[in-house]
């Protein structure tokens, strides 16, 4: 269990401010944020390799704020793996063992288990120089886990990998976490990774935490405009509320219920906006006439911008759907938004 209280790190051009965080024992926690949000800095502060300005870090009830890194029992895996280039794979993995006085036999079994689990049997005597990105990452994981840390810190372990290795390492991480029962704290800028791996997550932006919660909750109910956009809600609008309606510019969106007080925004996922050529028969709520502004090819899907009133909505269409609809720019269409798909915050 990691408890962080009012952690502050002031650098010349950046600051982490008043970070409060509590991570449960054995949890897979992700720290999510864009580049430059201070994620790696926070990780290094927990590992003890960067000095902190003020605050307190406790692991399993023990205050480690003033402990040197080697006494913390916290391992770190960097994005670039940081393997020792002058040591073989096996010597990398066993590097830290001499500092941890444990039963020789059980240590040997533990290392053998890790090597086998991470599929490194054939590589143990190789130099680290010719390993692929995925192999390097697996060696770094084995090295970090070999010393049986109480916490494993992962600094964007998937970002630098080729897509095919990425999936491989992602599955390994998930399985390892389930099998070893060690607390994992992973830093990433990719929400998809968090969805797959994380149990709870904290969103970091410009040195501040914007939201902490279970991944699904952050995904479905973002608390700030930043988080909403970060988790892929392409349509975030400031809104005024009137009974069960949200007023966005000149449009009035029907909500599924009475919104709580102190709400200022609505957000809608691009995939929840339906585009039709004609107004559908029946009495649909939240159907607005609009004009197609732009169609952008996003690879597996198309992003279509539609202006309805003064508001520009961004919707997602599959290639085949777009082909059927035949939507040239400037075409008149209708958009429909289910009340339940409108998130109020």
């Amino acid at each position, binding site marked *: 269990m990691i408890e962080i209280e009012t952690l502050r790190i002031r650098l010349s051009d950046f600051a982490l401010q008043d970070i409060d965080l509590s991570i449960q024992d054995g949890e897979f926690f992700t720290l999510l944020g864009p580049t430059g949000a201070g994620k790696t800095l926070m990780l290094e502060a927990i*590992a003890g390799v960067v000095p902190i300005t003020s605050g307190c870090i406790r692991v399993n009830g023990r205050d480690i704020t003033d402990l040197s890194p*080697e006494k913390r029992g*916290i391992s770190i895996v960097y994005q670039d793996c*940081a393997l020792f280039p002058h040591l073989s794979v096996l010597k990398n993995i066993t*590097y*830290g063992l001499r500092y941890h006085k444990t039963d020789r036999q059980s240590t040997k079994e533990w290392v053998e288990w890790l090597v086998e689990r991470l599929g490194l049997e054939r590589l143990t005597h190789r130099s680290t120089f010719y390993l692929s990105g995925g192999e390097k990452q697996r060696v770094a994981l084995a090295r*970090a886990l070999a010393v049986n840390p109480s916490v494993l810190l992962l600094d964007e372990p998937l970002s630098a990998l080729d897509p095919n290795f990425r999936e491989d390492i992602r599955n390994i991480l998930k399985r390892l976490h389930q099998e070893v029962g060690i607390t994992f704290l992973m830093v990433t800028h990719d929400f998809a990774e968090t969805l797959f791996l994380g149990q709870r997550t904290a969103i970091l932006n410009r040195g501040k935490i914007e939201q902490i919660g279970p991944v699904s909750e952050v995904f479905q109910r973002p608390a700030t405009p930043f988080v909403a956009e970060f988790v892929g809600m392409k349509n975030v609008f400031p809104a005024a509320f009137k009974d069960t309606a949200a007023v966005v510019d000149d449009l009035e969106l029907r909500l599924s219920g009475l919104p709580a007080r102190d709400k200022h925004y609505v957000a809608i996922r691009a995939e929840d906006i339906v585009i039709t050529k004609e107004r559908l028969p029946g009495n649909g709520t939240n159907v607005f006439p609009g004009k197609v502004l732009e169609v952008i090819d996003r690879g597996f899907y198309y992003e279509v911008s539609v202006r309805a009133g003064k508001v520009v909505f961004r919707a997602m269409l599959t290639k085949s759907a777009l082909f059927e609809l035949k939507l040239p720019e400037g075409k008149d269409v209708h958009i429909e938004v289910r009340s339940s798909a409108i998130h109020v915050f």
Partner: protein
Amino acid sequence: MKIEKSKDPFFWLTVFCSSVVVGFILLPLVQMTVQPSFQDLKETLQDQSVRRSIWLSIYTSGLAALISFTFGTPFAYLLARKDFPGKRFVESIIDLPIMIPHPIVGIAILGLAGKNHWLGHLMHQVGIQIMGTVTGIVAVLTFVGLPFYVNTAKAGFEAIPVRLENVSRSLGASLTGTFLRVTFPLAWRSMLLGIIMCCARAISEFGAVVIVAYHPMIAPVMIYERFTAYGPKYSQPVAVWLMLISLVLFLLLRIFSVSKENQT
């Protein structure tokens, strides 16, 4: 595979300037090396005072490098790894010995070693003499050689990602353990290069040494003395021997470092 048919004028300019530079360095040295006859060279080496002064040159330079290595390594590591107020200032202090005219170095060190100064007084009481001693020569050579060791070693340390050291610490190694098991094995080649540079700088020093210690005579002082007393014909053979021996020593060190590299 030929891609460019006609080279740009700039290309020919680079070729021309490179040959001028190389020629400028090599011509005088080659000229001096081929001038003395074998008989001269042989006789010079049989002269005991020549052998003594060359040996003195080599071992005082070696000592200077050893001192630079001992004190310069932790210092270079500190400069490479830590940011502190006034770091730029400290770095420029390190470069000072490169800029100061050599006789001034000698005069400055003598000024400190004189009996009028408390430090000189103290040294005198302990029995350390600077003027006209091997100690004095080593002190001067260390002074001029240190920057070359510190700067080279520092560059070597800087080239090692700090993340490697962070990982080592997180795995349980202390700062010392990390230095011995990660930093040193990765940086020793730069440190060796620094030692070579420092040695080379020390062995070539004349101006500062001649002020602190004319005797015992290191090779450059002897070459100077023979030149002023008897002319170039008598000084050249000594110079050739000093050059050859230094060259062989540095070559050996280089070969040693490369062959080690291939083993790992």
